[in-house]
């Protein structure tokens, strides 16, 4: 990042290449919409690019990056919630269990058995829905902890809370997931 600050455009391209995938995945799991996740990731990188000259390496770059990303994702979720509330007043009621589902790179080719494939799809759907049901801050904490493998200090800086509060937040999130995924958890625990 210091090279980017010094005006090295090549370093920004490297930074983009290094962080675009983890950032898009984090945002995708936060907002559950691929297109929106990519738009938000672009916004994060543009903000990094614009702020490059003011960058002070007081914290780790990943902390700064994911802090911007988390704030944008939380704002976007709030905006979408208000938008959905406005739409739902006029829109006809539709039942669509797959709403918000995205097509992802999958491993269907590895399963010649269609039944096994369907079972796995159902498992993934249950896990996704359990994560989606978490309160936004808990969801962000779980995603940063589990998928970005950031340490507690970094995550607490990103979410602007104490380390102790973060551990408590994560404990509550895992408790909720444990209850939501009880059948799968029991199955997993037996293995």
């Amino acid at each position, binding site marked *: 990042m210091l090279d980017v600050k010094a005006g090295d455009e090549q370093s920004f391209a490297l930074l983009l290449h290094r962080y675009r995938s983890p950032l898009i*995945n984090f945002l995708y799991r936060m907002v559950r919409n691929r297109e929106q996740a990519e738009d938000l990731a672009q916004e994060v990188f543009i903000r990094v690019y614009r702020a490059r000259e003011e960058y002070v390496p007081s914290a780790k770059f990943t902390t700064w990056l994911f802090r911007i990303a988390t704030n944008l994702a939380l704002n976007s979720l709030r905006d979408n919630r208000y938008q959905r509330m406005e739409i739902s007043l006029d829109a006809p009621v539709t039942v669509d269990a797959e709403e918000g589902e995205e097509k992802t790179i999958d491993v269907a080719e590895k399963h010649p058995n269609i039944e096994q494939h369907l079972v796995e799809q159902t498992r993934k759907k249950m*896990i996704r829905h359990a994560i989606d049901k978490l309160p936004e801050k808990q969801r962000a904490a779980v995603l940063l902890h589990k998928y970005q493998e950031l340490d507690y200090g970094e995550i607490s800086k990103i979410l602007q809370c104490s380390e102790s509060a973060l*551990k408590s937040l994560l404990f509550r999130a895992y408790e909720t997931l444990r209850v939501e995924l009880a059948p799968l958890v029991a199955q997993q625990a037996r293995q």
Partner: protein
Amino acid sequence: MGCGRMENRILPYVDGRLKEGERQEVEKHLAACAACRLRVNEFRAVSGLLDELPVIEPSAAFDIRMQARVAAEPMKQSWWAWFAPTPRAVLAASMLLLATVWLGSRPPDSPLSAADIDKINQNIQVLENYDVISDFAPLSELPPPVENDDASDNQNQQM
């Protein structure tokens, strides 16, 4: 250590992020508490389930759109940028320098001789009043000067 204190330690224990002393303390508690042992196993199971979610790849258009957005960003100019030479300024300065050198090295068009300067000094009064004389109406009404005046004088003298 009681079960209440386990709340903030179960997950770091499952992650393997506890310090050695804390880990030993947790394990001592787990050896005596079946409920917390079950909780640890369940948290491990939840963590394993979260690993099952697939990873998505950025779309092919992502990089192209990103490059376009970065290229569209206005270049930030610092205060020092004022002193940085721009191609246009460099060209203008070079042209000015060349013109100065060329004018300075050019020989004077028609240097005046001492005789010319004497003639000008003699007629300086007429030249000073040139503006008045050139617009003096009575002068324009005078008949044109007679040509070959000297020649006719010479003929008269010969006769």
